[in-house]
């Protein structure tokens, strides 16, 4: 974090829990990360480890009840967003304009009964405070900017008249039109075929170059991580357990879980179908976490020392390579 002025979003010690009948589910437990302007970072981890809830917490969109942000800070452009009430005009002004979010399911992410143009211009009107006509025209420009041919007539279309890739572009167009500085893309390409996937990713990357947008992508696809992300955060059971540059994480992983993730994918350019599932055992239940390392029951290197408490993130190499593991310094023991 050499250059503080360059940091767009910094999440510090974020904690989000769901209060259910089964008890407190610590979906996000002391998560910290940052993203610089014009940077692409990735968050990876098994299903249910809290990737989406982390991002929804940043937007203050976690369903409440049962969800509640119980601690931490979300500093966006120098302002702690958690100081805003979740329904406040300030928070709404951030959503869509400051930080935009794109979700996994393009087929269901747009309202089926309104025209594309109506949905697009509505958001533009809210954030840019322009009249309907101007908003409509800016909508056309935004559709053109994300590479939708025949943008003018596309505005008149309903979502069901468009393909999945097209709809994902429409969602990106909303972000472009409102000048979003950060796009959080939660598995943006999982539901798309391989060619469309590549097109959408190229589009996102081009936004970084054209507008200096930052992109945080949540993904299961290590191929995408390799190709697009500069840095990676690996999450396990609601915590970040390793973080660093893409090269460090993929070529020199330290945490046994990260190693397991990498092993579970035969090729780095594997397709989306080959999800990160092949680590032995089940992810722990977030309502019954032990008081020590949550990966302990599945860890091939587990030993008595591991039970002394939660391991904290500590620097394990240059370029901000961090890892939370009691055994991280015993590299020898890890060597296969």
């Amino acid at each position, binding site marked *: 974090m050499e250059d503080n002025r360059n940091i767009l979003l910094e999440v510090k010690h974020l904690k989000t829990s769901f209060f259910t009948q089964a008890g407190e589910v610590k979906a996000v437990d002391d998560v910290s990360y940052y993203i610089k302007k014009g940077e692409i970072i990735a968050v990876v981890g098994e299903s249910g480890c809290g990737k989406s809830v982390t991002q929804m917490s940043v937007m203050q969109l976690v369903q409440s009840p049962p969800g509640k942000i119980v601690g931490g800070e979300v500093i966006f452009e120098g302002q702690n967003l958690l100081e805003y009430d979740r329904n406040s005009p300030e928070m709404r002004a951030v959503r*869509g304009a400051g930080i*935009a*979010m794109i979700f996994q*399911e393009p087929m269901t992410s747009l309202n*089926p*009964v309104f025209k594309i143009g109506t949905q697009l211009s509505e*958001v533009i009107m809210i954030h840019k405070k322009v009249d309907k006509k101007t908003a409509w025209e800016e909508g056309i420009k935004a559709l053109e900017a994300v590479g939708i041919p025949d943008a003018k007539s596309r505005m008149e279309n309903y979502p069901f008249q468009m393909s999945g890739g097209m709809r994902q572009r429409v969602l990106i167009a909303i972000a472009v039109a409102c000048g979003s500085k950060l796009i959080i893309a939660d598995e943006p390409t999982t539901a798309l075929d391989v060619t469309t996937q590549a097109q959408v990713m190229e589009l996102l990357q081009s936004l970084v170059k054209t507008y200096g947008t930052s992109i945080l992508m949540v993904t299961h696809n290590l191929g995408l991580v390799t190709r697009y992300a500069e840095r990676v955060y690996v999450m396990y059971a609601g915590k970040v357990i390793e973080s660093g540059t893409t090269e460090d994480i993929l070529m020199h992983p330290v945490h046994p879980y990260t190693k397991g993730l990498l092993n579970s994918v035969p090729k780095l350019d594997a397709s989306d179908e080959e999800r990160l599932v092949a680590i032995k055992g089940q992810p722990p239940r977030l309502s019954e976490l032990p008081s020590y390392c949550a990966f302990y029951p599945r860890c091939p290197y587990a030993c008595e020392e591991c039970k002394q408490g939660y391991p904290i993130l500590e620097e394990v190499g240059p370029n901000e390579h961090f890892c939370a593991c009691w055994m991280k310094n015993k590299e020898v023991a890890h060597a296969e």
Partner: protein
Amino acid sequence: MTSYIIKRVLASIAVIFIVSIFVFSIIHLLPGDPVVMALGLETPMEDIERVREEHHLNDPLPQQYITWIVEMFHGDFGDSLIEFRPVADIIKERLPRTLAIGIPAFVLGILLGLLIGIVSAVRRGKAIDQTLTFFTTLSIGTPQFWIGMLLLYLFSIKLHWFPMRNLVMPGESILGYLRSATLPIICSCLQMMGSISRQTRSNMLEVISQDYIRTARANGISEKTIVYKHALKNALIPVVTVIGMNLRNIIAGAVLIENIFSIPGIGVTMTNAINNRDYWVLQGCVLIVSFIAVFGNLVVDILYGYIDPRIREARG
């Protein structure tokens, strides 16, 4: 949208044609000679023959049907066998009374139903939701005649707030209309209100958890706009179907309501026509009521297409 509407209108015309054949058949499907049944067995032969001739009953069936249609286009529905005057006059006199109850009940049922449904959904699980749910469940589960009797007993007989009979038309006196129409309108709309509010509530709850609502929130759209624009329009799609169904219920309910509250409308006229075997009156009333039902469904269909573009595409 235009081609969708044209198709719906054509379909309705086809339905009306089929309905007219059914209604025409009433007379011919009934056992025995309708004229003998109507005038009684003691009537002299020549009188019966004269009436048969007057009503073209001796012509071949297709010709009878055409004569009937042509006469109807000229506003001639035949004459009542009991009241000795044109059926058209009877309908003109009675239909407004039925509509004076039915239309407000229909509109009120929709509006109150939507309102209650939305409030319940937005305040899900809260005291107001539970209270409203209790009353809507009650209003759906209680038979209409029982509600009608209860209303009459409480508010007319005991409290004297509303008259028991004698519907005053709004043209005569607005105040008199409000006093005399309130109870029958309430009685007529309660069930519809209940079923629409339940449908609205459950649809709203389902819609609010959809991905596109999450998108709307993530785009900074206010919660109010999300509920009343984004969610409501989607939630209304199944409600429109329920409204269509309830239109039929209101029409059917008119017979009951008019008998309970002694309103001389189409419902009572039909009941009397059946009892007196006044076939031409019955035929005319059934036809008019069917027209209203078909027309109502046409409106509902068009509304449906207006709300849901996918329907328009699929059926247009």
